[in-house]
């Protein structure tokens, strides 16, 4: 095992006594199955009469389907069923519809226009894999190729090809208002004006395929109780179950999902395509059906971590402090949304990285291009922008002639600093990490940097939310009419200044909770949490009552006025559900406590 040190001195007051597991090796519970070859991956379930499903896929980046002739394929030996778009009961979906985020934009089997190479338009179910492959090759498709766009900046041009009909502007739409996710904190323009120098950088990341050793796949098997069992490689069993129920318009009670032993996922096994496909096959044939990607499909149509492009502009003062930072970010979502819309929100919540910068602005775009749809992968939303930020920090250090670690420590956030998304920083440790790394790398740092601590020097002035300039640029559709600049505050138009201390613009429900019990642990004192329907929200009953559960102050849920909406955009009455003055995003970061 690689050796590691456990620095107990940090966050010592956060622990009660010794840790029992962390820092000690633990033999995994499933290891015996792994070394004997007996761990049950989805494909390790054998069924007599198993049928094999394979897809007819687009050879083009962007094309209209003129005609499909599968008459020969349907007659071929072993072919049991040709499955077309009309066989999918609800053939339009977006993954995050399960939390009410985004519009339905992706068919399971595409009926009329494909938007990426490898997009499936038809499936064949046959008695053997070889027969299914042969039948797929026998399907005649007439395509009318369309102009395509593979670059995020090109896709935002007024006459770029429309990739995804649901989003004709080639971007995901945030809060039904903007074609990007905004973050505004302070006044970056003023910050740049006051700065000693401006440092700009642009950073590009390619897509990365998760490449699990087990490719994505599922086997669906009709059971005798009107249910379909689905053995799947999914990383998100219930997510895949719900997605399948939705696309196939069936009760989830009829689906019996079996999973849990996954041959590597890394984010690439959440997209829930193989499950509805195999279940559909089983429903239509009444037999067990396997839908498995081969390695080529895994690489070509398996959704990767998407490409990203980040442009960062820093204003730095004469002492080396970053006084303003603006971001223009682009997530290449590929042809459909999948999870990139959420990656953008996550990335925005992360800006400007672990640094205290008084003026921050960002415009982040979730862009549709004719590339393979992108999805989750290990820290997606964060990994790419962190790479960009840290490259930019090195660039800033060079520009100011500073040691890059000293430069980071000088600008590091500290406990009690207000972050750009309007939460106070807590449990920060960048300074300590920098000090340890400098030691390990034998990198000399300044004596000043040596004595710094994350626990000191934060808060005070830096705990305040500055007066903030907000704008309305980048409304949905603007970019179709003219070439609108993408950087924050660059498009002109009306600006307003929110007074110092305003915690947010106006409330927005990013994704309304579906059920009241999802808000279960809200304390009754929180006025925002009182349910409209008059029912009291119960805390989920797990474990002992709260009084005996904790022996230190329970983290207080932030009060409504402290709770910012990450998106600083005006609210609109939700058409789906009564507006709840709470964002689901805030649930992830609750537990914040002033120290």
């Amino acid at each position, binding site marked *: *095992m*690689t050796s590691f040190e456990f620095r107990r001195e940090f966050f010592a007051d956060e622990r009660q006594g010794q840790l029992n597991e962390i820092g000690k*090796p633990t*033999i*995994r519970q*499933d*290891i*015996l*199955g*792994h*070394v*004997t*070859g*007996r*761990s049950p*991956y989805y*494909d*390790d379930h*054998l069924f007599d009469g*198993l049928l094999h499903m394979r897809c007819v896929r687009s050879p083009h980046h962007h094309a209209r389907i003129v005609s499909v002739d599968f008459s020969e394929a349907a007659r071929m030996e072993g072919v049991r069923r040709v499955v077309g778009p009309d066989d999918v009961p609800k053939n339009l979906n977006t993954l995050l519809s399960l939390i009410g985020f985004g519009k339905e934009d992706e068919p399971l089997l595409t009926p009329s226009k494909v938007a990426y190479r490898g997009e499936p338009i038809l499936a064949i179910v046959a008695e*053997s894999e*070889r027969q299914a492959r042969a039948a797929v090759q026998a399907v005649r498709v007439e395509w009318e190729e369309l102009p395509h766009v593979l670059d995020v900046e090109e896709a935002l041009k007024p006459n770029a090809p429309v990739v995804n009909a649901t989003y004709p502007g080639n971007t995901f739409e945030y809060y039904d208002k903007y074609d990007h996710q905004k973050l505004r904190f302070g006044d970056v323009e003023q910050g740049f004006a006051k700065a000693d120098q401006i440092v700009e950088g642009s950073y590009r990341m390619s897509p990365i395929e*998760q*490449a*699990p*050793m*087990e*490719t994505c796949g599922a086997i669906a098997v009709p059971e005798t109780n009107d249910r379909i069992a689905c053995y799947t490689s999914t990383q998100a069993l219930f997510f895949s179950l719900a997605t399948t129920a939705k696309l196939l318009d069936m009760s989830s009670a009829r689906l019996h999902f079996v999973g849990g*032993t*996954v*041959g*590597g*996922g*890394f984010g690439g096994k959440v997209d829930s395509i193989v499950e509805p496909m195999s279940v559909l096959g089983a429903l239509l044939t009444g037999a067990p059906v396997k839908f*498995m990607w*081969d*390695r080529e499909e895994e690489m070509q149509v398996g959704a990767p971590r998407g490409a990203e492009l980040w442009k960062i502009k820093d204003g730095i003062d004469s002492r080396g402090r970053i006084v303003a930072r603006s971001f223009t970010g682009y997530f290449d979502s590929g042809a459909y949304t999948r999870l990139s819309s959420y990656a953008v929100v996550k990335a925005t919540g992360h800006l400007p990285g672990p640094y205290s910068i008084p003026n921050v602005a960002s415009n982040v775009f979730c862009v549709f291009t004719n590339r393979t749809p992108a999805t989750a992968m290990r820290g997606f939303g964060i990994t790419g922008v962190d790479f960009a930020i840290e490259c930019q920090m090195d660039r800033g250090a060079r520009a100011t002639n500073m040691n890059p670690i000293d430069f980071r420590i000088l600008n590091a956030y500290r406990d009690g600093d207000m972050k750009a998304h309007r939460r106070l920083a807590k449990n920060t440790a960048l300074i300590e990490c920098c000090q340890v790394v400098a030691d390990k790398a034998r990198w000399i740092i300044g004596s000043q940097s040596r004595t710094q601590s994350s626990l000191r020097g934060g808060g005070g002035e830096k705990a305040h939310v500055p007066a903030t300039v907000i704008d309305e640029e980048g409304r949905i559709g603007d970019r179709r009419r003219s070439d609108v600049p993408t950087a924050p505050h660059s498009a002109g138009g009306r600006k307003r200044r929110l007074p110092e201390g305003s915690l947010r613009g106006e409330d927005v429900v990013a994704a309304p909770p579906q059920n009241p019990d999802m808000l279960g642990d809200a304390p009754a004192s929180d006025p925002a949490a009182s349910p409209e329907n008059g029912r009291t929200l119960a805390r989920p009953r797990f474990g002992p009552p709260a009084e005996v559960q904790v022996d230190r102050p329970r983290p207080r849920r932030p009060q409504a006025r402290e709770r910012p909406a990450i998106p600083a955009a005006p609210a609109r009455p939700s058409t789906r559900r009564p507006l709840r003055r709470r964002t689901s995003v805030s649930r992830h970061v609750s537990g914040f406590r002033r120290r």
Partner: protein
Amino acid sequence: MAKTPIAFSLNGMERSMFVDPGQNLLDALRRGVGDLSPKYGCAQGTCGTCSVLVDGKLQLACITLAEAVAGSSVTTTAGLADGSELHPLQRSFMDNFAAQCGYCTPGMLMAAKALLDRNPSPQRQDVVEAISGNLCRCTGYEPIIDAILKAAAFMRTRGRP
């Protein structure tokens, strides 16, 4: 479809079955006789998850024609343990954190066994070469190399297989 009857030995047991023309050994082992220990990772020979021994030699089951093993003796991870006693390689993989998702593990074990059968005292570089056709996406190779070297050391002192 004309099928071909074949007989071979699998982990010391005589097996006979009918194979489809062009069927690969991986499919024949998994679906034909139900030995699920070799895994499908690519069906191209590139990943090593399907590694088995054919007459003691490491081969990729996915690109081995099933009917070509007629009369041969095939060993898979399912046959590695001696009854209820794990092979030292298996123990070592367990103790040295050489598996995470475990999907590459049966292939890695076979590649390691092929090495130790030939060379009981491998250097680190020999181990690297021996598993160079096997990909692991989770664990990283260091713990696996480590586990193989430790198993080799153990087997030298205990004089097992």
